[in-house]
């Protein structure tokens, strides 16, 4: 089995009002950052998955993401995988 480090980025789907992002944007704009816009806030999850190969690792993480880690009704997720080298 090979260990992979998975990074999962979870963001609200486009078109769904991100009230957190909007509030942070308003705060930034009221500071000296009036050139910042389209602030969106998501979640980031990191985990290690053991699998035979990268394809299987991706399948496992994808299943975990759609079943629990993200809510597919309102969120999109992106997975990146990197093999962990044994020292």
């Amino acid at each position, binding site marked *: 089995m090979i260990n992979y480090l998975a990074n999962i980025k979870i963001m609200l789907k486009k078109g*769904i*009002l991100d*009230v*957190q992002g909007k*509030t942070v944007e308003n705060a930034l704009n009221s500071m000296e950052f009036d050139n910042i816009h389209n602030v969106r806030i998501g979640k980031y999850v990191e985990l290690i998955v053991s699998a035979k190969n990268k394809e299987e690792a991706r399948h496992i993480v994808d299943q975990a993401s759609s079943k*629990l*880690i993200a*809510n597919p*009704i*309102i969120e999109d997720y992106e997975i990146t995988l990197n093999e962990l080298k044994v020292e």
Partner: protein
Amino acid sequence: MKFAIVVFPGSNCDSDAFYAIRDNAQQEVIYLWHKDTTLPKDIDCVILPGGFSYGDYLRSGAIARFSPIMQEVITFAHNGGTVVGICNGFQVLTEAKLLPGTLMRNNTLNFVCKDVYLKTSNHSTRFTNKIPKDAILRIPIAHGEGNYYADEDTIKSLVDNNQIVFQYCDKNGIIGKESNPNGSLLNIAGIINKDGNVLGMMPHPERLSDEILGGNDGLLIFKSIIDYFK
């Protein structure tokens, strides 16, 4: 009839619900622990209470939905059993896909804790049959994530199938932006599933079921369920 109230780690309205059922509705009621793996055969109605199950980690209700007792509750619901999810319980029901849509962060970003007025949009359910036709209920809400959202097709099917049961309104029954406490689509406060045996609602009927607490509009919901089982 007999009720069961599921207690998750972090539930905090379980005792209120227990009191409302036992003392106000005067029915038999037991607690079920989240680790229980069987639902007693004589249970007629399961209540998923409010609170912060599993600390609301990840998303409200997301972890609770996979607890051992929930597998039994899901089977019970699929077999036509009566299930009520209140507040966090509603969030658990959407995560478990027993109800469509999801509950997002309130559009104000605030945790809202106050009495609201509710219009009953469907009186012919097992949860609303005792609510007088023109009654506007006053029931408290207390949540940070009660902003009901579903895609357009889902909303259309909720409307077409008469699944919207409660909507936030003002004291005169007018449904509008001003009476929407959290940004919910169509001012949705409570919905049922297509089969009509599962109810999810953000307001807390168990918190206003006793006159000494300043009102008992919430009791009408429990009385409706009891009447259905007569």
